[in-house]
């Protein structure tokens, strides 16, 4: 059986003032998988995310979501089609409560307050945030803040969640908890996850497949075990160490 392709990136290129941040990138995300997008710093991962989610227009290439061409569409439209992303540095509304953060995510999905309220509470419970619902996000410890950003994205029950370095700054227990939640999101709700991460151990543990970028160019793809033994990948990472 052919795996259903949820997101397809074709020939994606993005130039930034003379530099090619991403060049001729091709990869696809299959329904129900957790795909890791990794690479040394400057590899073009964030740029790829920005283009996929509509925050930047590509210089060339196309992005297809569930078969539809979403290249260059604006982020709100793409989001309403079922693709949600988080941001590396704070995907949060710091001066608002946890409840309101998630509430805002449900507004374009549901018309009435009771419906929105129920979705927020269900999501909070899944992510162990029920006790913090009325806290201001800015006052929460870092680990919980990260959870809130995932909660905001997940409130939408989108088909595809694009998470940009969600595990940064989390300790081991928090990471394990987050990974368990990713699995639940995938298993219980059928969502697909595209994950950019630097935490290699977590990536190897949770991802079904991995795509590796280096200097904006596709380097390798495959299952974690294949990638960990891939010579080109190893030298790309080693070459970056000072």
């Amino acid at each position: 059986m052919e795996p259903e392709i949820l997101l397809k990136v074709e020939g994606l290129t993005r130039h930034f003032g003379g530099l090619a941040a991403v060049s001729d990138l091709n990869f696809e995300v299959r329904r129900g998988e957790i795909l890791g997008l990794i690479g040394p710093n400057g590899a073009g991962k964030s740029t790829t995310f920005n283009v996929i989610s509509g925050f930047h227009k590509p210089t060339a290439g196309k992005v297809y979501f569930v078969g539809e061409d979403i290249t260059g569409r604006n982020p709100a439209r793409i989001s309403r089609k079922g693709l949600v992303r988080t941001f590396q540095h704070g995907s949060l509304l710091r001066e608002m409560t946890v409840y309101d953060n998630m509430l805002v995510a449900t507004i374009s999905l549901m018309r009435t307050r009771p419906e929105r309220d129920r979705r927020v509470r269900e999501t909070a419970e899944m992510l162990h945030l029920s006790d913090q619902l009325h806290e201001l996000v800015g006052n929460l410890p870092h680990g919980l803040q990260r959870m809130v950003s995932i909660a905001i994205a997940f409130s939408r029950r989108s088909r595809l969640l694009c998470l940009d370095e969600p595990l940064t700054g989390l300790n081991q227990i928090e990471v394990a908890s987050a990974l368990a939640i990713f699995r639940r999101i995938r298993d219980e709700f059928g969502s697909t996850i595209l994950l950019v991460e630097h935490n290699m151990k977590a990536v190897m543990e949770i991802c079904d497949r991995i795509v590796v970028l280096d200097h904006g160019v596709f380097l390798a793809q495959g299952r974690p075990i294949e990638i960990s033994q891939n010579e080109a990948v190893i030298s790309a990472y080693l070459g970056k160490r000072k």
Partner: protein
Amino acid sequence: MAKLPRALLVAASLCAVIGSYFSGSDFAANLIIWVAINVLMTASFRFVLLIGELNFAMAGFVGIGAYAGGIATTMYHLPLALALLLGAAAAGLISLVVGFVTLRAKGAYFLLVSFAFTEVLRLIYSKVDVIGGNSGMIGIFPPAYLARFYPAIVVLVVLFFLFVLYRMERSDFGKILVAIRNNDDLVQTVGIDVHLTKVWCLGIASFVTGICGALLAHANNVISPGDFSFLVAVYTLAYLKVGGESHILGAVLGAIVLTLLAQYALGFGAYEHIFYGAAIVIGVLLLPDGLFGLAQRMLSGRRWPEGSGS
């Protein structure tokens, strides 16, 4: 944040309406009207601050409301209510168009575009003769049988729209506005078109601002382009800074206190500049949450503000 007893607010509002009917002297009546209109202008200015923008185009929309209302009354002899609504509608609709174009800019840039818009409008008013050109429009009166009630009408209308703005702020739409101020990329990412939402916000605020303009026109009976310079927004900013930005009652308090103070403080000309300038400077430097924030803190026993105002 202390929740103000609803009963108290309703009682105060009723007193305001009744009191304004029995206001007696012309001076008191005019003062009440002036204060009430300033309150609503400050509240509508504050509404745009919810998305994090300083609406320096406000004077332009006050002007549109005033001229539209004035035209409705003097040239078409429409009833007062219709004149007010037309003023509001004109301001609101034009703001949707202007906002769609100008809200693409942010911060300092939006400020300048708004300011430019206000000045362009003012120059246009002074060149269009059918509305009086530089000398302005005269003879804008509420119908004779309503003249006695005018202060009460103004207060009623102001209270009604204050309530409307308050409810909008507390609704889910209001939460989106505050979210946009916090992190507009995130709001895009959860499926909300930020640009359109900002335009609606300006539209709603300008509708209310238009009402203020029309009310003003019928109160002063004479309007001219000079009434609608960007100083209008600056004075409104003073009211808001002194009163406090974080709650709509801050806008109310600031407008009341400063308008009354200005009446009793000093006369015209330079003193006006010094007064309002000092008010803003003091408000910004010494009262980060404004008088309302100060009152809240005193009532709940805390001494120092928790960080600066919104």
